[in-house]
């Protein structure tokens, strides 16, 4: 749908990231040169641009296409917006016979299409599962955004957030005193709920574990219940842990704009915090793309992490952490406490298709379900073609979780809403658990558009925390 794209970033959002403040003169040549640079640097990108045979397998696999019926939201249509420019300037046929191969010049019209449609891609990679060549539209979309940023055309939502994360330490712009105050309040709530002094520590030197989690966990609903769930697990297992006020963000939006240079800056904050606090382990909270960055990029961006305890995965996902404790018998669940709920689980795209968890293939699907089944009696999966590697994006991933894209977000949520509605009708599902801050916020927002309640989306660690057997309160 031609909505003109999200709000455009201002100079204050672009310049600190190393980009021009606004669209530069002569941007056409700079954009073409940047495209050539990226295609030569990343062979995968060049292969993706060269190898499409227009077989059509991807056409109906994108949730935004399903929700909008716009042909430019077919994955191949989206790829072609960049491919037709690549062909014009970087292939023999396109240089000399552009019309024959659908090659076009880099014009303002093309740029406007890029800005619109590369911000209707949540980089979820579902289409790549069905492409016989494995063409990854996410990588093409990231490259397009990197080119646009290079000529001074960035999205406000992403770039404003990245600047905050690099200066204040988290996407929210939550300063240390506010973080400390908020966490103190959560400790009070935990005491009220359990009668136990369950801590949510910050900047504790010498703790065993540094937990890096999305800042939405400190701020938003239902995320905050997930954070309290992590705190209960650490308490029950007797493992010392801490958050860091310096690296108080797991999310790394620089991935969404395809910027390794900026992605590295944020990854290095986490390394620095881990070293300064002297921790032995790094655990990552419930955040989808953060886990992709941590699992797939941290080592090359900010590694080696040879100062951490090699007996544990580096980094380790909170689900993996809790799963390991449960398997070892270090924590116990009373499932019946969740008898009021019938649960299903939403696989987040970056966890499902861009990373793994545990020591066996498919652990990213199995471990969260193991934990849910261990902590509740009623668990039902949504239809098979909408979960595991074929999971549908929530509709708000990839840097699209902004109010100015609300219509696209609502439409893009359609396939997941249909799948959820199916298990609600057939199996009486009451709640959907997720392990991604974006998914949780997006669902809380769009569920009411589909006639469901905003409180039907919950954090996986809320379910875990509710069932967890804790010690007896001191009377």
């Amino acid at each position, binding site marked *: 749908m031609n909505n003109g794209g999200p709000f455009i970033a201002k100079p204050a959002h672009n310049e600190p990231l190393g980009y021009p403040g606004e669209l530069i003169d002569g941007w056409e040549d700079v954009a073409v040169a940047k495209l050539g640079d990226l295609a030569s640097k990343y062979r995968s990108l060049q292969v993706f641009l060269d190898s499409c045979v227009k077989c059509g397998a991807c056409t109906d696999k994108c949730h935004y296409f399903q929700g909008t019926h716009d042909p430019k939201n077919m994955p191949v249509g989206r790829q072609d917006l960049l491919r037709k420019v690549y062909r014009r300037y970087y292939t023999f046929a396109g240089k000399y016979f552009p019309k024959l191969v659908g090659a076009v010049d880099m014009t303002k019209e093309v740029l406007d299409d890029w800005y619109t449609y590369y911000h209707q891609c949540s980089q979820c990679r579902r289409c790549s599962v069905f492409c016989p060549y494995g063409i990854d539209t996410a990588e093409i979309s990231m490259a397009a955004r990197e080119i646009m940023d290079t000529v001074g055309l960035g999205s406000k939502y992403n770039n404003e*957030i990245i600047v905050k994360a690099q200066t204040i330490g*988290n996407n929210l712009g939550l300063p240390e005193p*506010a973080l400390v105050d908020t966490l103190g*309040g959560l400790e009070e709530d935990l005491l009220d709920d359990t009668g136990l002094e369950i801590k949510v520590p910050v900047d504790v030197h010498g703790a065993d574990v540094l937990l890096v989690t999305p800042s939405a966990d400190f701020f*938003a609903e239902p995320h905050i219940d997930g954070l309290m769930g992590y705190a209960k697990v650490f308490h029950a297992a007797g493992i010392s842990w801490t958050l860091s006020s310096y690296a108080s963000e797991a*999310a790394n939006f620089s991935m969404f704009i395809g910027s390794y240079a900026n992605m590295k800056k944020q990854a290095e904050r986490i390394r620095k915090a881990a070293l300064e606090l002297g921790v032995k382990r790094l655990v990552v909270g419930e955040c989808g793309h953060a886990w992709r960055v941590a699992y797939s990029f941290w080592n090359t961006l900010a590694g080696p992490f040879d100062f951490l305890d090699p007996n544990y995965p580096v980094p380790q996902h909170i689900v993996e952490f809790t799963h390991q404790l449960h398997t070892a018998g270090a924590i116990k669940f009373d499932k019946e406490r969740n008898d009021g709920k019938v649960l299903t689980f939403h696989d987040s795209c970056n966890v499902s298709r861009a990373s793994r968890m545990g020591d066996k293939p498919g652990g990213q699907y199995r471990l969260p379900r193991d934990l849910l089944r261990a902590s509740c009696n009623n668990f039902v999966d949504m239809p098979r073609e909408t979960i595991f590697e074929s999971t549908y994006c929530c509709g708000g991933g990839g840097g699209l979780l902004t109010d100015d894209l609300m219509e696209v977000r609502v439409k893009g949520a359609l396939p997941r809403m249909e799948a959820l509605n199916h298990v609600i009708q057939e199996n009486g599902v009451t709640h959907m658990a997720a392990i991604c801050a*974006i998914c949780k*916020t997006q669902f809380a927002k769009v569920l009411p558009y589909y006639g469901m309640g905003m409180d039907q989306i919950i954090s996986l660690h809320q379910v875990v925390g509710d069932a967890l057997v804790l010690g007896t309160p001191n009377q």
Partner: protein
Amino acid sequence: MGIEVNGKTLEVDEEGYLADLSTWEPGVATVMAKAEGQELGDDHWEIINFLREYYEEYQIAPAIRVLTKAIGKKLGKDKGNSKYLYELFPYGPAKQACKYAGLPKPTGCV
């Protein structure tokens, strides 16, 4: 872009948030609310004033949990929940109430 408050034009951003926090006055909230078809009563002002006080101290809007707890302590448990806040501010306490209070919009995955 701007809004007219007591004869002055105050700059707002694309989403209607006040560009310069220091230009806020109670009239800002009234004008913004009116544009969204809302009348502000004492209940709304309790929230708006709390948001401004919190921002003054911490330079950020409070988490919903912090807000509901503070309201609950002040006005009684039956009002210390997000349902009450959504009744007052149907577009969401974070986004609508913050806007009226002149606070910047919370960013991130929220």
